[in-house]
């Protein structure tokens, strides 16, 4: 099953049984249904599905208004950068409403614009940039396990959060994996435990981590594989304990912003285990902005060379 079909199915199961649920957003009940994200969705008794005007600021505020009155809702957004227009509400309105301890749910589901060749808006591909404004709970979906865990625990649960999906993954087969451990709030998952290397994937980088792990296995090296799907209030304990054992940390982060959670992990790791060998895999983004022209938008990783480097410890 493709990634988008799997996510759409999980969302549909959750929305169909939720009473008074309002689904809203542009094109959610027309055309391609946001490339299949909202295709065939239904809501429980009393709910509504609204194809909205092009007014992201107001749609974001409208979701908070519904939340204030005890009506659950999900706002689907075609591109993450459209949500920049809703920042006033993500900061000011959310900071008001969180003090009221709302008993109902409001979730925003934006599609990450990471398909490539999208031009200037592609510099914004880190949900953490928005989440950090008011420490909004946020999650990314990268595989079958995190999709199920995050959607079943958060999509229509009381409170506010943003759950993003990666457009570049839409047409790919869903990665069928099982996690060994996870943080209590589904912000972090551990998929395997190894002896030689700790691989930590951020944002929507998990598929890269899976590839690297295979290359290391080919060289007889076992690795621990983590995915950090949350963006705020992260507890690094599972990772720091693992790194103390492997002494080698690989950070793979496909986000392009300057303010990244991976740096917080590095501070945590190096302050307790300064001898750890750290390898960072990130975009090379010169300040002259040449990378802003339409480009493939994916991390260009030489897995063989990286695996060799980790195998020799150089």
């Amino acid at each position, binding site marked *: 099953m493709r990634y988008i079909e799997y996510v759409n199915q999980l969302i549909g199961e959750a929305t169909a049984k939720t009473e008074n649920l309002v689904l809203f957003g542009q094109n959610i009940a027309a055309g391609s249904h946001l490339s299949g994200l909202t295709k065939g969705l239904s809501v429980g008794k009393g709910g509504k599905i609204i194809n909205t005007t092009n007014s992201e600021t107001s749609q974001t505020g409208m979701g908070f208004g519904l939340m204030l009155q005890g009506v659950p809702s999900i706002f689907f957004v075609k591109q993450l950068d459209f949500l920049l227009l809703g920042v006033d509400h993500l900061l000011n309105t959310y900071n*008001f409403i969180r003090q009221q301890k709302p008993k109902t749910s409001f979730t925003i589901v934006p599609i990450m614009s990471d398909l490539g060749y999208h031009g200037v808006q592609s510099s914004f591909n880190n949900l953490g940039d928005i989440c950090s404004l008011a420490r909004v709970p946020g999650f990314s979906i990268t595989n079958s396990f995190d999709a199920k865990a995050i959607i079943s625990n958060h999509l229509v649960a009381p409170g506010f959060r943003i759950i993003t999906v990666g457009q570049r993954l839409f047409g790919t087969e869903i990665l069928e994996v099982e996690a060994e451990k996870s943080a209590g709030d589904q912000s972090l998952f551990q998929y395997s435990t190894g002896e030689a290397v700790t691989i930590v994937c951020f944002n929507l980088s998990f598929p890269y981590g899976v590839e690297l792990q295979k290359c290391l296995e080919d060289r007889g090296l076992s690795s621990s594989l983590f995915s950090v799907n949350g963006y705020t209030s992260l507890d690094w304990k599972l990772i720091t304990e693992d790194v103390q054992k492997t002494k080698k940390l690989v950070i793979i982060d496909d986000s392009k912003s300057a303010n990244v959670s991976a740096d917080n992990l590095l501070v945590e790791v190096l302050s307790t285990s300064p001898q750890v060998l750290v390898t960072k895999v990130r975009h090379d983004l010169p300040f002259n902005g040449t990378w802003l022209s339409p480009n493939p938008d994916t991390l260009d990783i030489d897995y063989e060379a990286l695996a060799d480097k980790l195998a020799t410890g150089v």
Partner: protein
Amino acid sequence: MEKQLATEILRLRLSQMLINEHYKSGDFKIPVHIALGHETIAVAIDSIMEETDSLICSHRNMHYNLARAKKLRPILLEFLLKDGGLAGSTLGSMNLANEAANIPYTSSILGNNLPVSAGVALSHLVKGDDGVTFVVTGDGAMEEGTFYEVLGIARANDLPLAIIVENNGWSMHTQIDERRSSIDVSGLCAALGVSYEHLSGNDVSKYIEILSKVRKGLKKGEPCVVEVSVSTLGGWYVGEGEDKRFIHPHAGVLPEVSFSSWPILEESVADPVYVLTKQFSEVELKEKAESIATQIQEEVKNI
């Protein structure tokens, strides 16, 4: 006019004057926006609101909170950030909401409350509770894009939403003609298929009559903009000769306003208390005002 409405207008006026006295004494750490001159629309809205209706306010919300809460003490305590404040001293002035009195949200940010009010109005449709929503904005906030966006959303979804535009002609210390051309709000509403009403003159009975009609329209899925001409009273002049200029009372203390049991500030229809003299004798009003003044002073004693 019912005597009770006149009593409420006097209570809102005197309560705000008493709050201003605390301002003069330097008692507030937070900014407070006094709304002298805005009493009529607040009393009228409060009068027509039914049990499941909602009211969403803006940074200048004191008049509505006084009208809905029916008392001064918890509001003053909130402004003083003391125990017993209306919102537990967590919201202060510019965000002061009161869910128990059907004010679920108040925003300090221009234009921010309009989208939230659309959600609140939609919630009444989803829940089928027969409620309607009133949201208060101003001639400055309606310049924000959300005003236009929410008119479109309200019309597209037949929301039971009335946008109350308190037009005092000022945005902070800039008058309309110093920042933009005039906006034909009725024409804008007509273009978008939204109803429009204009209120002026501070006749509270007339306001109630028109707002009741608006509320009936909201129940039929006809969103409406109600533009209200108001004068924010309490301004003063500084400087001399050619340097003399008017200070509009946007926020902060009003140095030339004093608590008085005869609280007329301007002898014109711009002053809701002056308008009361058209229907009640001065003797009767003075007697009522003195009684209210004594009552609210007693209410806030020992704060």
